């Protein structure tokens, strides 16, 4: 059983000192290939994100529907001009004329209600 196990005859050497695998050539190959790939992927991602950001910033403004401009309610100034007062007075007089309870601009249609052929 023991004969089959492969072990180092030099038992004074620690495993750290003795390389387990000799892949020095492969390691150096990987080390050389990784930066190129990363650079490429990073570059694409970066440019893509930047492109999307720019398109959103520029294109978004064009697509957006016009926002209704809300004009603030004018705050009455402490002192109005004579002309403004005249205008307000005219409006008030007009409103009062419109509200005249004696006027009846829309009377019920003055038409026959009982229409028939027989007596």
């Amino acid at each position, binding site marked *: 059983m023991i004969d089959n196990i492969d072990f180092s005859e030099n038992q004074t050497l620690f495993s750290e000192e003795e390389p387990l695998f000799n892949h020095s050539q492969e390691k150096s190959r990987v080390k050389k290939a990784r*930066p190129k790939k990363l650079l490429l992927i990073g570059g694409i991602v970066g440019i893509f994100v930047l492109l999307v950001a720019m398109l*959103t910033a520029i294109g978004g403004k064009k697509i957006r529907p016009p*926002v209704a401009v809300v004009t603030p309610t004018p705050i*009455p100034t402490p002192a109005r001009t004579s002309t403004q007062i005249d205008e307000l007075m005219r409006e008030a007089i007009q409103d009062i004329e419109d*509200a005249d309870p004696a006027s009846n601009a*829309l009377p019920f*249609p003055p038409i026959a209600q009982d*229409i028939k*052929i027989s007596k």
Partner: protein
Amino acid sequence: MKRAQIFLTALAFLGALVTFVSAQENPVASPVIPTTAPNTQNLFNLQGQYFSLIDQYRDQEQKYIVAKNQYLQLNTLASQELAVKETRTLLTLRADIFLVYLDILNEELSLGKGIPLENKNPEQIALTLLKEKVRIHKTKSESALDRFALDQEAANFLPTLKELESHTYYTLSLIKVGKMQVAYDKLFFVRDAVKSYVEGQTLSSAVRSEKERGFAEIERTLDNVSANFTPVKNDVLNNPGVSGLSDYSKLSKELTPAYGQMNQVVQFLEEIRK
């Protein structure tokens, strides 16, 4: 190599940051609600239609009276046919008048200010339902071929006619009260404007105190307007749909004192601003 990685990461971060800031600056715009301009043009058109129909109705009414009398005197099949035809045309025209009149009322109510929505909306619905009843009556009148069918349809329409009259006077009452409310509200606005205008003037103490007494009189008159107007208004608003010609005439009389006082307030304001 490391430097390139850092640069690209920073670039990506910057891109994401720009996107985020852009989204914050330009939030999704809420849909723009179109504001409906008061459709006064439509009202003018309807009024034009209405008066034109009234003219047609007057002509047709004469034809109907002549044909009916002829039929009742002669009692022939030919005269009966003519009477049926003229009556049918008259009923159709009358229905058209009511349809346009209901449109006018609805439009006036819709444009009318100073009317609470809880009164305005149900009344508009009632007017629309009435319009549908009139339309059905018109269709039935048009398809009635003999005098029995026509007389029956005319009789069937009588309750709708009463309903129509009642809603008409209630709508007119609402419009009247609304106009009074608008005029009343405007008086407060004008009073404040005149007050601030007078305060900005350089006046002697005698003139100033005279104007102050004037404003005090205006306050008292406005209180009287409120005392006269508010109960009448509440009576109309709290009894929806209940109205007739007599109620409408009564309303006009009841509003007269408040109306007179409002005119007085305007006169006072005109005096004070001089």
